[in-house]
């Protein structure tokens, strides 16, 4: 018995953790995958499942929900063609360069997936935003990810760099900058919705005074999207700040002081010593933020309910609304589409941008 225990002790210790992962992570993943290919109806004693093949996905890309997920397509404008063809050519040149220089099948297949995603997103924007058509929840989500993460990274990094220097009251700044991240997103949503309410919010008199009393940000698609990005940034800049602060503080002072002695200015010192040192951490921070940003749901739900129209609706919110209406098949299909987009973009970003830069460093 003892011998058996000794032999299998490792597996026994691992068993609880593995079981938990299987039950709470793998099983829901498999169950939702099954749901994505089915229509489900609840009834007494359980539910009825009817498999419908790819119909839930087909509906999103080619059917009645196409406008909702990817947008409305009529004809592509001249600007759209120029943009689309230019990016397509660049992407094809990039993959051709890879094939010529260091081809491996594994790397090639990975890049083909990246290429397909890149072409899809390029023509999605070319056919919608750049052609005067409406884009769907994927376009809106990408806007939140690209614009939101960029703002958060720039401001968070700048604040972190400032606080890493010897300035007065930096401990107080650290605490203040960190507070928004501790507030629940629903609370943040309500706070910003109240603040921006021009009719009866606490700042309605201020809005009137500055001449914006008759302007409704919630009725304008771009103003609404930007307001959500502002609220999201307000909440998540602290995350970038705290991570980058730790990164900046880990840079050896010996190196920066040596550079100063050698005559390097602050900018040169930052560019040549500090930035290369914090780059891997910065890339990881952005990766984590991007993954989170793809899942944005609370803020558009609370601030605008996805409106005006579907202008501020993210993919996660679309899935949530479908789930709420008990359209579990569509909700699962949308969730898997988002998972695919997120994984491809984030893995591509990490492999092709971050790792490439890190490998180039001496």
């Amino acid at each position, binding site marked *: 018995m003892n011998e058996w225990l000794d032999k299998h002790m490792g597996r026994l210790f691992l068993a609880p953790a593995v079981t938990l992962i299987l039950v709470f992570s793998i099983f829901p993943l498999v169950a939702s995958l099954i749901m994505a290919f089915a*229509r489900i*109806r*609840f*009834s*007494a*004693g*359980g*539910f009825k499942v009817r498999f419908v093949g790819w119909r839930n996905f087909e509906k999103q890309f080619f059917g*009645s929900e196409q406008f*909702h997920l990817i947008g409305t397509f009529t004809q592509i404008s001249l600007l759209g063609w120029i943009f689309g063809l230019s990016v397509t050519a660049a992407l094809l040149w990039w993959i051709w360069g890879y094939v010529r220089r260091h081809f491996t099948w594994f790397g090639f297949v990975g890049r083909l997936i990246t290429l397909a995603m890149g072409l899809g997103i390029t023509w999605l924007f070319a056919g919608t935003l750049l052609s005067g058509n*409406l884009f769907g929840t994927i376009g809106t989500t990408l806007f939140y990810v690209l614009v939101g993460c960029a703002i958060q990274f720039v401001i968070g990094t700048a604040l972190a760099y400032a606080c890493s220097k010897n300035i007065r009251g930096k401990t107080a700044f650290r605490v203040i900058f960190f507070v928004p991240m501790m507030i629940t997103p629903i609370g943040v949503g309500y706070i910003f*919705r109240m603040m921006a*309410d*021009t*009719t*009866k919010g606490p700042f309605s008199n201020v809005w*009137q005074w500055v001449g914006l*009393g*008759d*302007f*409704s*940000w*919630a*009725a304008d*698609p771009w103003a609404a999207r930007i307001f959500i990005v502002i609220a999201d940034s307000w909440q998540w800049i602290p995350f970038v700040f705290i991570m980058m602060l730790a990164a900046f503080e880990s840079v050896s002072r010996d190196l920066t002081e040596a550079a100063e002695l050698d005559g390097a200015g602050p900018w040169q010192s930052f560019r040549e010593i500090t930035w290369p040192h914090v780059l891997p951490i910065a890339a990881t921070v952005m990766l984590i933020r991007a993954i989170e940003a793809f899942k944005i749901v609370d803020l558009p739900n609370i601030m*605008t*309910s*996805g*409106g*005006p*129209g*579907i*202008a501020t609706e993210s993919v996660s919110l679309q899935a949530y*609304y*479908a*789930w*709420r*209406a*008990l*359209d579990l098949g569509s909700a699962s299909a949308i969730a898997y589409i988002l998972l695919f987009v997120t994984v491809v973009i984030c893995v591509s970003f990490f492999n092709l941008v971050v790792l490439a830069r890190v490998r180039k460093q001496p």
Partner: protein
Amino acid sequence: MLRKFLGGTALALATAIAPMSASAEGHYDGVTVNILTRPGPVIAGRMVERGEEFKAMTGAEIRVAEVPFAEIFQKLLTDWATGTNSVDVGVFASGWGVELVAGGLVENLDPYIAADDKIDLQDIAPYFRDFNQKVEGSTYFITIDGDFQMMYYRTDVFADAGLEPPKTWEEYLEVGAKIHGMDMNDDGEPDFGSCTFMKRNAQSYFAIQSVAASMVQSKGTGEGLYFDPATMKPKVNNDAWKKAFEVFKASVAFNPPDVLNHDIGDTRSLALAGRCGMVIDWGDIGPLSIEDGSQIKDKVGAIIMPGSTEVLNVETGKLEACEASNCPHAVDGVNFAPFAAFGGWTGAVSATLDDQKKQAAYDFLSYMNQAEQSNVDVTMGWTGYNPYRNSQLEDTTAWVEAGFSEASAENYLSAIKESLNHPNMASDFRIPGAQQYTGVVLDRELARYLAGEITVDQALANIEEGWEEITDDFGREDQAKIYSLSLGITN
């Protein structure tokens, strides 16, 4: 000091023992009834208070769990269908319940009602008694709130402007534009011609149906608003719904600037602050107008929803002038169709409970519904309960005691009576998938049209396509059968 302490202890003991003594006599000692409904205090709050009374009388403990409005049905359906059964009673819109009944998840309450000598079913208004509480002729739901939409207007503002309340939707647009910008609460700021909830994923899809009803339905409740009962072909892509959408959008001009982000909480707070000339709402505005802090006490008139001088010809899809042949219920050439939006909050008992718990659950719903309790509850705005019993409408005493002036109470109750007893009252969806048809498809396309994303023709075509998909998904024949049954009973 000692005397105070002893006195306090005795009082505490007496307080603790009193309910125990009462419950000791109760025949439901040890029984707990778990109720799921929307967040309080509206609807849920009064149930908690009445639950305490019920416990003192019977011993049954009433626990009220609250979930966001949009998630009530989903949580209830999954709880009951999957056998979780953490909920004993659901309180929700009766229209949603048809799907629960179809799934065999809800108890038929006919035997309980037959043995109940206190519920006085004949006092409940015919629409709620014979239509809202029933599916296929049997009673599955107990009404605790009567819901349909009315129009409210500021009597002082209309008097100052020399205007009459609107009888048609065209008049609504005219008077709304005329009073927009007037200072209605003497704060020096211009106010709004009308306040309507137009936010997506809120209540705007109810309001648009109130506008469309009088243009679509003219031959009585049994005609229905939504489908051809034989084929389940949607009757939405036509001139009547088109005009309703256009009227709704035109009214944005005299609503608050951020109306597209306003839900019912926003419009009510604006109305009570005296900033709205007209409001489309359920019956709540009346009782809310007399509450502390209201700027509109005794300044609110209530009327049946405006009507239409043209109605839909289902064959051609065009609007035709209202005449005796196509508008049998019209008054002075105007067809009215008050919309029973949401249908009211109703309670349903899970079919899986044991007999004692079922009886306890029914008894509590009956207690809430009985005139002795409900006639008081409907006069209090914060409860969210609106009238549904004849005795609540016939006597103004309780309303005057609650704070209404005699004239306001009479005006309010007469508008309710006019709507409630109207032979052309339009029913809300009462078929499986009701939430998907309206809460998802209609709501989303309306929001897109209001936001300028699509034209009215595109919106209506999309709704038609979406409704067809849902019908096919649930089974066209099954849906047609249930829809026909839902139209079978008229006032």
